[in-house]
């Protein structure tokens, strides 16, 4: 709410410029929704995978299952540690406070790019270790042939994942190039390191409005 009447009138003029605005707003909404969804998804995967394997190990009481459960927890821990280190700056309030929001957006995109690479590597390591474990267990029981349908599923799943990863990375590269082109206009090539060293979720509403403002900036 703008209390200054003159600014309020100008703001109405500014906001009434809605050429391609709907698409921009929709994109911004989607970006924020996706961001929220990822966080929920990561927590869900941790709870389901970690919890599921723990329950299985508890019921099976076999060393092999216990080792697999430990491996699953180690992988989850690695993923979360990477997530926190990689996104540390993006999740602190100071990331918004200390730099221009353009620099913040750029940093988020670069973090996402690193996360995509890391996610791909972790996926293949997980797949290799878990698959080897399952194969060895079934071979011991003479049931290795049961893996055939799983193989088909795995190949298909892997192809879908790789295709998605490549598409996601190329989209991020495009966005980064677009933001880098804007940087001289905005001034400041980087934002200082965050001052607040604790974890804090970004103000999503603010981020959303900034995304819209940035897009509009592109057009004026």
């Amino acid at each position: 709410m703008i209390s200054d009447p003159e600014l309020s009138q100008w703001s109405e003029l500014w906001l009434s410029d809605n050429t391609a605005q709907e698409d921009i707003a929709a994109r911004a909404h989607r970006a924020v929704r996706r961001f929220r969804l990822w966080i929920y998804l990561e927590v869900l995967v941790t709870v389901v995978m970690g919890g599921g394997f723990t329950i299985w190990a508890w019921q099976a009481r076999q060393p092999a299952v216990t080792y697999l459960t430990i491996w699953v927890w180690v992988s989850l821990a690695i993923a979360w540690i990477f997530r926190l280190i990689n996104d540390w700056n993006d999740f602190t309030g100071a990331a918004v406070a200390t730099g221009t929001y353009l620099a913040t957006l750029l940093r988020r995109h670069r973090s996402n790019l690193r996360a995509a690479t890391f996610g791909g590597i972790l996926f293949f390591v997980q797949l290799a270790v878990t698959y080897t474990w399952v194969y060895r267990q079934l071979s011991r029981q003479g049931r290795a042939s049961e893996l055939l349908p799983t193989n088909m599923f795995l190949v298909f799943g892997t192809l879908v994942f790789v295709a998605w990863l490549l598409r996601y990375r190329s989209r991020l590269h495009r966005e980064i190039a677009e933001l880098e082109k804007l940087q001289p206009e905005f001034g400041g090539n980087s934002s200082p390191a965050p001052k607040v060293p604790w974890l804090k979720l970004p103000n999503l509403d603010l981020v959303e409005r900034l995304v819209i403002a940035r897009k509009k900036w592109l057009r004026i």
Partner: protein
Amino acid sequence: MVRDTRPNPEQQLAGEQQRNQFLAAVRRLPADYRRVIVLVLEGLSHDEVAEVLGLNTGTVAVRVNRAKQMLRDLLKEKS
């Protein structure tokens, strides 16, 4: 009978011209001032603008005032 309250074509055209003039004036502001005013026009409070741009609230207020003055001058110049 229901009265049509929507602007007529002439009013629409005038509104569009006014908006284009305003956008052109915003475009001509120096980057530091433009950055601040664009965020204010988007509806961000001075505190939020300060947070986003890493400035203190006082600086934001000063820049908003100067940007307003420049915009007034530019719009007067245009008209």
